[in-house]
């Protein structure tokens, strides 16, 4: 009985500790969401109160109206366009490059593989300045070209992940198809692509989410309000009207995270798989 009680106490302590810490971890997020219903006074002077004293649903409408005659609807559409087109480009080109590096024995394969691994370690900010100069010379600063173009070249992080996946596909499948008269191009389209679907979905989720969150890109390249993405608009919104309307700011902060929340709820598994695979084999 004593043994049993001790075990139970350990069990309770464990859950109180782990659960309590978990609550602490998501507290800022919950505070933000509930803040979207509060008035300024409560947000500024009674930060410790979690629940709204009165529920101000109008914050959402005020926030959504945006500013300078552009609503958050516009910014949402912009973000979706940039994120979706970059993501689709990354998926296709990363799969192509992964196929070449993992399956085709061509001259220079080792060299390009090394370069690919190298770019994974290369911090993006190092080439931010010269990249800007290139886009500036091309006359595309202010358009979405600098935000999307880098993704049509495949991305090392995903190429590497897909290579791991492709090496798990039995070579016999390729060989059998080859004997049946399928070309190397056909093998990619009919065998490799369908079989690496989980890796493609992981890429879809992670890349979409990275691109949705991206702040530095729009900050550098986008200036006109009708082109602003959600993250960039939110920062400007906070700078101009946040001072007077914190509730609306938190409402739009929450709105800006909706896609991320949806991914978290429905595709969590792919995120986790993606993260843990690269970590283990890296």
């Amino acid at each position: 009985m004593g043994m049993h009680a001790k075990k139970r106490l350990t069990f309770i302590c464990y859950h109180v500790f782990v659960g309590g810490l978990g609550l602490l971890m998501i507290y800022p997020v919950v505070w933000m969401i509930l803040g979207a219903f509060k008035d300024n006074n409560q947000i500024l002077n009674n930060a410790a109160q979690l629940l709204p004293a009165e529920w101000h649903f109008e914050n959402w409408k005020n926030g959504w109206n945006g500013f300078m005659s552009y609503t958050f609807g516009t910014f949402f559409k912009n973000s979706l366009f940039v994120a979706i087109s970059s993501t689709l480009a990354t998926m296709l080109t990363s799969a192509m490059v992964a196929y070449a590096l993992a399956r085709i024995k061509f001259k220079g394969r080792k060299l390009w593989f090394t370069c690919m691994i190298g770019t994974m370690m290369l911090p993006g900010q190092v080439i931010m300045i010269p990249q800007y100069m290139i886009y500036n010379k091309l006359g595309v600063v202010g358009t979405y070209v600098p935000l999307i173009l880098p993704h049509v070249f495949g991305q090392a992080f995903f190429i590497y992940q897909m290579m791991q996946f492709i090496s798990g596909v039995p070579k016999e499948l390729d060989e059998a198809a080859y004997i049946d008269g399928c070309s190397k191009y056909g093998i990619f389209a009919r065998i490799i692509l369908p079989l690496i679907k989980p890796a493609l979905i992981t890429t879809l989720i992670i890349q979409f989410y990275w691109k949705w969150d991206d702040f530095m890109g729009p900050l550098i390249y986008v200036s006109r309000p009708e082109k602003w993405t959600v993250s960039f608009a939110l920062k400007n919104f906070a700078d101009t009207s946040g001072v007077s309307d914190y509730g609306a700011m938190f409402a739009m902060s929450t709105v800006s995270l909706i896609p991320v929340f949806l991914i978290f709820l429905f595709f969590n598994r792919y995120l986790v798989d993606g993260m843990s695979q690269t970590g283990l084999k890296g």
Partner: protein
Amino acid sequence: MEKQVGAYEKLKSIIHKNDFVGYVFAAPFIVGFLGFTVVPMLMSLYYSMTEYDLTSAPIWIGFRNYIQMFTGDVRFWNSIAVTFKYVLFAVPLKLVFALLVAFLLTRNNRIVSIYRAVYYLPSLVGGSVAVSLVWKQLFSRKGLINSVLLGIGLERINWLGSEVWSIVPLILITVWQFGSSMIIFAAGLKEIPGSYYEAAKIDGATTVKSFIYITLPCLSPIILFNLVMQTISGFMVFTQSFVITQGGPNDATNFIALYIYNQGFRYKNMGYASAMSWVLLMMIALVTLIIFKVSDHFVFYEASDN
């Protein structure tokens, strides 16, 4: 007619050659690598030796940017110092936290997987502008953190207005996002054979002891991987300091990436910003190298011949 067929056959045999197919599929990466990585890097090496404001032609000034940076720019040295300070606190704290929580959550049942999801959420939202705005509010003078401090009988801290304290919210927002490292550790923990722990238990080892003598050595390659990746991204921290502290007060959180951004895009000193980018790259390479060198002494790789 015959000649045409021959040419067609020849073309067909070429496009199915491995060398050709390989380059067709690898082409996106090769074009991007050369055009948007190698060329920009060489360009920035050139521009780092010029004075360039984007509008007028660059003026060649040799190593003057580098000399200015190392001998005449107090703000540069300060930005290096605060970046190191940030990395030295944020990265180890984040990894220790990630490892401990991963260790706590090794059991496999429904409730533990819910916990894991909850702990993972911050690293999913933490890089966003939205959370940075929340953070700014949490650490404001009358914000939640100060309310808690007052509640437990301590004094308010002027987090965002003080040169001493302003780095703390930025370190905390990074540590808070320990979830992705935790996921990687959790995957690594699963790979450790349960028999190791059972054997240790029979020998009378406590949980703490088996953590130190089994878990840590078995995980050391993954710890190294996380350490390198987190250190590199630590040196690049931008959005949070841009939104929460704007590098202030008095440059106390003027991290190097933020300083490069400001030199390049605000003051239009593209040459100087290029030079700083190169110094940053060298610095990161050096730090990574040191980590790898030091790791030889503590990273444990399972012998492959057994």
